């Protein structure tokens, strides 16, 4: 019997256990195993190894589950306590944005009037208006980004697995 035939048989023995094989391959392997003691022994050893692996037992330490449940509940409580603060932050951001947009025309007029009264160049009071309007928003964005970057530290790799 040629070496290639044995190689094919050994590969099929493994493949059958790892991902399954086609009916034709099953038939071929069965007929090969009827006449090849070496491959029969290989298949027997493979099955024995898998049986041993499947039946191996590991003992979970006493109280591990209850300790974990306790820790998880504590953490859940911490997270629940943080929730209102986060909601308040979002609410403040939203209100600030609405107020900023609504008051922008009036503030623009105010900056324009102040600029004319003090005689500063148009560019200066325009920049002043830009800063007045954008700095609080940028600050809020920075806070939110910091918050979400902390939250999403490991989100990427967890998403990979989901």
């Amino acid at each position: 019997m040629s070496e290639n035939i044995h190689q094919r048989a050994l590969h099929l023995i493994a493949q059958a256990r790892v991902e399954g094989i086609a009916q034709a391959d099953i038939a071929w392997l069965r007929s090969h195993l009827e006449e090849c003691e070496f491959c029969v022994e290989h298949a027997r050893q493979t099955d024995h190894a898998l049986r041993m692996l499947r039946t191996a037992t590991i003992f979970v330490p006493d109280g591990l589950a209850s300790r974990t449940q306790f820790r998880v509940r504590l953490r859940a409580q911490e997270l629940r306590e943080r929730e209102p603060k986060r909601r308040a932050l979002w609410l403040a951001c939203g209100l600030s944005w609405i107020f900023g947009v609504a008051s922008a025309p009036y503030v623009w007029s105010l900056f324009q009037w102040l600029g004319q009264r003090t005689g500063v160049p148009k560019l200066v009071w325009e920049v002043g208006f830009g800063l007045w309007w954008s700095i609080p928003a940028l600050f809020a964005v920075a806070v939110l980004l910091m918050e979400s970057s902390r939250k999403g530290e490991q989100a990427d790799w967890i998403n990979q697995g989901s």
Partner: protein
Amino acid sequence: MAGPTLFFSTLMGDEAKSIARGLQRRDPDLLDRLIEQYQYRLFRYLVYITGNKERAEDFFQETWIRVLERGHQYNGKSKFEAWLFAIARNLVIDWQRSRKAQSLDTLTDPEQEHPLQLADENDPSPLRQILSHETEETVQTSLQRIPAIYREVLVLRFQEELQIDEMAGVLSIPLSTVKSRLYRGLEALRGALQGGASL
């Protein structure tokens, strides 16, 4: 023939969706139940990938904390256990990275210069302490001879009975790599149980 299969897959899908909904609202009773339900499988997986019981205990707790915190990211489209193992595995990898390693694969790749030392410094045979019977001692001795990347796929496939595509998700590697590791791992396990050198 497709009837029962379809029934069970629908049932599992419903279960996964219900878990996803519970995790979204951080339902403490659901988490308690999941911890109970998956304690054995998760702990066994962690013991096999870390090779250390105490470390596995720490990672076990950390994994469930992560499940609580990131539960909203589980969408219920995949098996919950696959997502759970992915979290556990990545926690282990992060911990190893923090010890200036690149990844679990690098640490445990038999072709690398310094493969992972499975034994704890203070305990030369940690797995031995938690596997009780004689047969299991044989298994654990054999498993210790196998590089962790192969041990891990064997555990996921033949103990956890994950599908190959689910394993690819857990391990973040291509299907072909999962398969080649399974073939090599199976051969290594067979060789190791025969008392011969593996790989």
